[in-house]
């Protein structure tokens, strides 16, 4: 039928050289972008380390800030405050966020209301953090009379990170293959038994990634806590005036005023004297180290979990 088709292979024009060139171009571009990112980060850390080097001693993390004697200043209350806030934020937001994600993906059907809720959660993830600060000020500080406390700050931070935790946990849960759920249901498992034994363990690495990303964000945020009324600098530890048992002490810490690292850094940065710039740089290094430690804990949990899975 075809009129004298010379050869079928003539119809293919592989242009192999051109395709391979494209491949090389992309490879080089990708590598360059990657290198730029790493270089940027390295420069940042390098500059900060150079500026803050003189202050990076054990004394820096065990001393209180001081305006009169800046060379003796430290970040002890701010570091403590940051750790308390992130710990409490995690305790509040992780169960709530993972619970909401499990409900939305495993229990709630695909209803109009459900889709509306999910759309709103996605929107909440994009709301500026300062808005959460205002909400926290109105609801937790004033209305619930929690004052400018670690508890109020943590609740505010929980609101901030909840949408991100819910979204990432939902994605991790959605990535668990349907065949796994069917296998469990076919054995007469309830929804909760299926979720508890199979869905959550399989989704755990993804959930952890989301939790760590959002808690890291919480550690670095200054704006909401500024609004909630975190102290510019503290000359005593939160709850240090309280006596009595461990519980009293804990309550006192939770309800006392507090400082956090980002605000401490911000305050030092505002000072004109160069020594304060160096203090700020040292504070940044401490903040980065805290973030790194948090990430390592997450990686550790993930590895431990993977090892456990092979029984």
């Amino acid at each position: 039928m075809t009129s004298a088709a010379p050869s079928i292979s003539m119809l293919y024009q592989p242009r192999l050289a051109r395709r391979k060139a494209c491949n090389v171009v992309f490879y080089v571009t990708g590598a360059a972008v990657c290198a730029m990112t790493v270089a940027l980060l390295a420069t940042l850390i390098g500059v900060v380390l150079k500026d803050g080097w003189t202050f990076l001693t054990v004394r820096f993390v065990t001393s209180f800030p001081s305006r009169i004697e800046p060379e003796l200043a430290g970040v002890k209350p701010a570091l403590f405050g940051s750790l308390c806030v992130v710990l409490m934020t995690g305790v509040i937001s992780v169960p709530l966020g993972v619970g909401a994600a499990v409900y939305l993906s495993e229990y709630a059907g695909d209803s109009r209301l459900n889709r509306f809720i999910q759309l709103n959660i996605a929107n909440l993830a994009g709301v500026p953090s300062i808005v959460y600060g205002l909400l926290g000020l109105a609801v937790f500080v004033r209305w619930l009379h929690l004052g400018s406390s670690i508890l109020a700050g943590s609740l505010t931070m929980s609101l901030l990170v909840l949408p991100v935790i819910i979204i990432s946990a939902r994605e991790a849960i959605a990535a668990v293959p349907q065949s796994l759920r069917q296998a469990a249901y076919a054995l007469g498992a309830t929804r909760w038994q299926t979720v508890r034994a199979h869905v959550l363990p399989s989704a755990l690495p993804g959930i952890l990634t989301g939790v760590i990303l959002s808690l890291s964000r919480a550690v670095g945020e200054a704006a909401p806590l500024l609004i909630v009324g975190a102290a510019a600098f503290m000359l005593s530890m939160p709850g240090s005036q309280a006596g009595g048992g461990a519980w009293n002490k804990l309550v006192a810490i939770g309800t006392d005023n507090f400082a956090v690292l980002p605000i401490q850094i911000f305050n030092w940065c505002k000072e004109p004297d160069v020594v304060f710039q160096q203090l700020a740089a040292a504070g940044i290094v401490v903040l980065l180290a805290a973030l790194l430690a948090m990430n390592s804990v997450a990686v550790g949990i993930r590895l431990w979990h993977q090892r456990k899975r092979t029984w």
Partner: protein
Amino acid sequence: MVIMDQPQGSLAGAAKAEMRPSPVSAPEPAGETIVRIENLTIRYGDFSAVKNVSLDVYRNQATALIGPSGCGKSTLLRAINRMNDFVPNCQVDGRIVVRGRSIYDPGCDPVDLRRHIGMVFQKPNPFPKSIYRNVSWGAKINGYRGDMDALVEQCLRRAGLWEEVKDKLKQVALNLSGGQQQRLCIARALALQPDVLLMDEPCSALDPIATARIEDLIDQLKTDYTVVLVTHNMQQAARVSDRTAFLYMGELIEVEDTHVLFTHPRHPRTQAYITGRFG
């Protein structure tokens, strides 16, 4: 339970008597209807996947459901243990009676139903846990109080997998081959001592040798269980099943003893399908 050196055939039977302290009824003769499907219609939205199907499944037999792709055989199979409940927009009319209970009645709990009707899926889907935990989990969540080690061994033996895995029970099941994984899934279903075992194209992801082993296994399982098998492989239906139902476009065209259906099909469409003229 220390009855491991008895011949395999009587194992599960003996275990069954021991594991069910309160049997639903006395031992029944073979040939009794264990699943009765009455005028079953299943719709996904506007589409009817199964149309007015009535079919009896007899105890201790293997019943094969055959038919071209999209004929509703898998949908019909999944109706028997209510796995279709998870499909949105899936609407079921008609009745399925399992051991005297109408399973779509409001009083019937699908979670409890699935304990009595095991299922093996098209693609092997072991849990990403140890071989041991794969078998024991179903029994554990259903409150099994007997000797778990013995139950796991017995089910793995019954599924013809014990000799291959007895030294690596604590290893993760995902390291097994596809055929071994599928036999593990069968062992996992057996751990609940089900009345009926539903198999949804259990060999379609397996090579011929693994397929042959599963087919042998189905033949052995019939002595203690009732098997309903969906397959698109007519030779497989002819080899392992006692009765065969041919479905086409959601309708049950013909159901007959397997050797009769394959030698003397009554309906011209059945004849066309089994002789390979379409499908």
